[in-house]
């Protein structure tokens, strides 16, 4: 059970606190600040800090630290905030129904269901350009604006592709296991219906390649030569390519000549960022790395949604599916 919760902003102020059991003085956060000082950056702070009487569990989200104070054994990842009183004149309704993710009495004039299949390529590419590890992390996010209590069934052309999937609680697990069909009463609005993982065992085609040549000298700077090109994109263009090169601490500044896009160098975080935009296959961008990119209308794994059926309601919704491939944790080693 969480005793108290403190929220700390990036400048290190406790700006919000909430106590459930008994009031714990905010000086408890000093332990956390100590750990923060020891760590090189915020990412390195250990998630659990042991103090003589309390355990501080810290979670970092969008530059805010959430510090949960526990005193006794908890099952990790499952701290139990008591349900907060929300400030609104209406009482919560979702908790009462058996379909807690959907409010009742939803009404739309245009019934629409959109599905975004987003795939992120996590890859490690070594010096020579060979892929060390590549996997795909995919999501199907849906934006569903359907009246009433529709019961949807989403089928895939090639459900065998999935290595591992996790679902929104609305998806009927058994139906998936037996038929490989997603059957669910969708939550209203935007939600992540499922996320899947296509592991490193299967072959993943990397849509870009990067040739680099980096050399550093101790005195007087070094040379950096990077070329990016598209690869195996099935005719789609690669867009929004961004290269991030974390530089060693000794680098003070970068002066570079680029053939396309623009670059920035952040002297604090020592990250060189090269914003390439779209890659034109005839003229390869060249800069004298992490990579980000987007390939729209393509799911790298080849996943395809087959059809969506709606049951339980009588209207015909507008349906749409969008495919995007993105770079996830895509790294090129130097």
């Amino acid at each position, binding site marked *: 059970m969480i005793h108290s919760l403190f929220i700390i902003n990036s400048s290190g102020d406790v700006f919000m606190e909430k106590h459930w059991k*008994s009031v714990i003085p905010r000086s408890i956060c000093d332990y956390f600040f100590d750990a923060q000082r020891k760590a090189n950056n915020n990412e390195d702070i250990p998630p659990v800090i042991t103090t003589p009487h309390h355990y501080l569990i810290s979670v970092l989200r969008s530059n805010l630290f959430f510090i949960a104070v526990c005193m006794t054994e908890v099952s990790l990842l499952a701290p139990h905030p008591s349900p907060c009183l929300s400030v609104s004149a209406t009482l919560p309704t979702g908790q*009462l129904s058996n379909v807690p993710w959907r409010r009742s009495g939803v009404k739309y004039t245009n019934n629409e269901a959109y599905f975004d299949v987003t795939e992120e390529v996590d890859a*490690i590419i070594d010096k020579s350009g060979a892929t060390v590890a590549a996997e795909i992390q995919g999501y199907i996010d849906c934006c569903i604006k359907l009246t009433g209590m529709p*019961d949807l069934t989403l089928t895939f052309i090639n459900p065998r592709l999935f*290595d*591992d999937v996790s679902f929104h609680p609305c998806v009927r697990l058994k139906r998936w296991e037996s038929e490989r069909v997603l059957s669910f009463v969708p939550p209203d609005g935007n939600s992540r219906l499922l996320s899947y*993982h296509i*592991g*490193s065992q299967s072959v993943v085609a990397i849509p870009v390649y990067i040739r680099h040549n980096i050399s550093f000298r101790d005195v007087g700077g070094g040379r950096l030569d990077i070329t990016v090109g598209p690869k195996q994109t099935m005719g789609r263009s690669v867009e929004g390519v961004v290269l991030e090169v974390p530089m060693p601490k000794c680098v003070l500044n970068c002066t570079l000549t680029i053939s396309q896009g623009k670059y920035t160098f952040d002297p604090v975080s020592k990250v060189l960022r090269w914003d390439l935009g779209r890659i034109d296959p005839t003229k390869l961008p060249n800069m004298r790395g992490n990579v980000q990119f987007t390939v729209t209308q393509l799911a790298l794994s080849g996943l395809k949604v087959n059809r969506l059926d709606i*049951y339980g309601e009588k209207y015909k919704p507008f349906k749409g599916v969008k495919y995007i491939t993105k770079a996830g944790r895509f790294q090129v080693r130097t």
Partner: protein
Amino acid sequence: MSTGGSYSNERPPTVDVDYAADPASGSFFSTEFKKCSLDDNKHEDLKQMLDSNKDGLKLEAMKRIIGMVAKGRDASELFPAVVKNVVSANLEVKKLVYVYLVRYAEEQQDLALLSISTFQRALKDPNQLIRACALRVLSSIRVPVIVPIMMLAIKDAMTDMSPYVRKTAAHAIPKLYNLDPEQKEELIQVIEKLLSDKTTLVVGSAVMAFEEVCPERIDLIHKNYRKLCNLLVDVEEWGQVIIINMLTRYARTQFVDPNAGSEDDDRERPFYEDDEEIEDDETLAKRPKPMDPDHRLLLRNAKPLLQSRNAAVVLGVAQLYQHIAPRTEVSLVARALVRLLRSHREIQAVVLTNIASMSTRRKASGCKGEKDMFEPYLKSFFVRSSDPTHIKALKLEVLTNLATDTNISVILREFQTYIGSSDKEFVAATIQAIGRCASNIREVTDTCLSGLVSLLSNRDESVVGESVVVIRKLLQSETVGHKDIISHMARLMDNIKIPMARASILWLLGEYCDKVPKIAPDVLRKMAKTFISEDDIVKLQILTLATKLYLTNPKQTRLLCQYVYNLAKYDTNYDIRDRARLTRALVFPSQGHEDNKLAKHAKKIFLATKPPPVQQSSFKDRDQFQLSTLSHLINARATGYQDLPPFPEEAPDPTVRYVELPASFTPENHHKPSHPKKSKPQKMKSFYSDESSPEDESEDDASDSSSDSDSDSDSSDSDSSESSSDEDNESDSEEEEEEEPRFKRKVSGGSSKKRPEKHGVSQSSGSEDTDSSSSSSSSGSESSSDEEAENSEDSDEDVKKKKKSDREQRNSVPQGRGNRSNLDLLLDLDDTPPAMDTPLLTPSLGGLLTPSPSSQPSQPLPPGASIQPASAKFVPTVTQELLNRISGGGLAVACRFTRSPHLYSPRMTSVELSFTNNGSEEIRDISVGSKKLAPGMALHEFAGIAVLSPDTTLNGTIGVDFNDTTQPAMFDLVVGGRTFSINITAPIGELLMPLAMNEGDFNLNQIKLRGMNEQCGVVSLSSGNKDIKSLVNRVYETANLLQVQCSSNDIVKFGGQTASGKALVLVSLSLPQDEQESTISVNCEKMVISSMLLKEIKSALKRD
């Protein structure tokens, strides 16, 4: 906000006069002023706002106060002013006051008591949310005086109608327990009651209360064990985590170790299983050891949760498998855990810690020949430069644990790239990992060693230092000396600055000084020079080296050694002084003590062979902690951590988990004889309850099934095999398993009313187990049916019968599908009426036009509950000619709409084709050729006629899905090589299917289908259609609808749905007395259908 105004009143007049004119300075001062007056006056201001009688002001004040509380400022002095507002009628103000009370009630107990009566009133509020809210706040107020009130409130709430309030009651229990542990006994009674609750909303919280208050009372779980297992999937996420953790502990106390004696014979089977569970050979072969079915039940029900989106649930299941599953099954969880690695760093850290622990444990448990479960995911553990340092270290740990002789090359190559990283800590950890790999895997020791040696020339000092330490450890465990490496390292002494590395080199030189007799004394000489400036651990090692060298090579080093001792004697560190004194006494015995025994054996003492250090995972000692706990993560015993109990040697009595018979069910011994009588009403009831209430629920069912048949025959297979279990016992188990949870889900999605019923069944059959220990086949706890179904196979006939009846009953009760005959189920006629039960199917009985509603049981039903498919009340005998005997060369084809559901798909309309051979020769091979259908339509052809002899007529039935249009279905009829084009158009009335419903539902749905969906018309009735009966007949002839029983006499109502789209079609006819005209209204969401149907009915009624 009126703050400014209120302050200006209190400002000293001088300030006002002096500075008011100058806006800049005025504002400056006023802010100053605000700050200093904050403590004294701001609260005054808030108090005034709270005292006002405007809700808006009060709300504003409360928001500001809560803001202060959240920021950690003290707002306690406002307590009296705030508490007054607890009676506020405004819900929002009230809620904020609640928040405030929870925070400060403890500090001002007397005043807080003023608010108690408000809560007590709110606890009786008709709104369940207000009741719950009041209970929550009441239990959060930490005022010991109100303990009895809280106790009463909890006891009241425990029996509340609303599950939400019961859930809140469960939440309140730990709070009360914390406030007053004296209440434990009473609270346990409440918990016991709540644990037996059957709603998913409550059980999670009830188990949490159990864990907080009385985790040792494991006996409370027995009765609820199966229920908890079965409900697990449907409980909300946080509840799942708690239940899984609790059940892990439960399983550890109640079941025997599934891994124990897995290599032994089955002789070790616990005694009870002999009569409890007779498995057939097949399953025995699969499993090394029979498991308690309840044990299996838990594992099976937890497994789907591995796909939860909640990391805590996945981790919970993973630890469940790790702790209680047979070793061979644990690997299931690997994939899900690897998936979690993609999420936030905190989750990554926790998951990696657990994976690291699991991988060490597996290695330790020594399952040889068995690949580690995480090995296929090796690449997922490769380190990225963007990972935080502690994640990197954990990944290294996992990689090292996973290293085997097959994948070591990949891992080593990976490690090599890590060494170039800029993160020093990480590089050091990598080198250590290499060392561990080298010592664990013999094959690569040499490669690793040479790799490490090459690192010695690295530019980075910390790399070198770390490698030296690792090499030292490796050399120590090596039997063969490595002279080159040692001399190489000795040369490095000049450059390495890291004390630990220097100390390591010195120690190595001393240990293997016999191998490098020339170098060692020279190093000692150098060291003696720099002795003073060395670090303490280096000094100690210099002493050791000196001693060892003196013992092996006294001639060269005697003086040096003495010199070092002298330096050490005056060192500032007492440790070094002590060490020097001790060793000097041993090596250079003082005068007169030369025959000291110790001195004689000095060589043995110092140059003894030392055992090589064991390089093992730092996760080894985490074994003692349960995975996924806080204690496991911090590797220390957290307050309140409970050890996971070891498996018992012999399983405790499993019968404790059997559930009592609910009173409503007949006990086992009376069961069989009474079965036919008993089961029938149940069937009826269940049928309704399934097709029950909200209209979309039944629609849901219908559409579900139609999707089944559309998409693939897979599901229909499983459907049929499930329900045909009477005939074919063995095959059902698997499919049934898949099928049933689907229902479960459906239940959860729909009305909650069904759930208790379902549990009634599971309990009843569970209890049958107690009586008839051998069969227990269907023990409603579905998941155990798998094994048990197999058991019962070899049991006697009697048991089989019993089982059959059980099964029938079970099928019938929760699912509503069970009441169909086997044939129907095989054909998957999900929502069409059972054809066997309808005598009206045959044309001869077509004229039997009993008013339909009379045949329906007229019992009060909830709205929507009555809507269900019915059979046709009239079957047209009129045929339509499709193929003339002249153009058909003697073959005449006519069609007739039979109004019976088509067997192939419920969306199809059955059309009976009658083929008559009017010629003189035999006609051979009649079949359907190519189909020319409009999009969306479908046609299921008839079987084909081989021979049609002259003057005979044969029938064939085709099914046409007209897709709710009157477009003709065109297809070719192939007759002995010739093709005839056939064109079937269905009258609009034939595209419908009758639905039985009560008047309430009719009206309800009619209201929904107003406006564009309603078509009205007036028709003057022909002379023959004046009375209701003939009118009804006319409508029946026109359209396949069913009359709805109606309270008033001058109105007739009909219900139906379109065959393909399942859209409701409602027809009402008003029959005013003594008038020639009748008003017809047709409601259907498909406007074309309603307008056409109106036209048809009109013309039918006009006809004579």
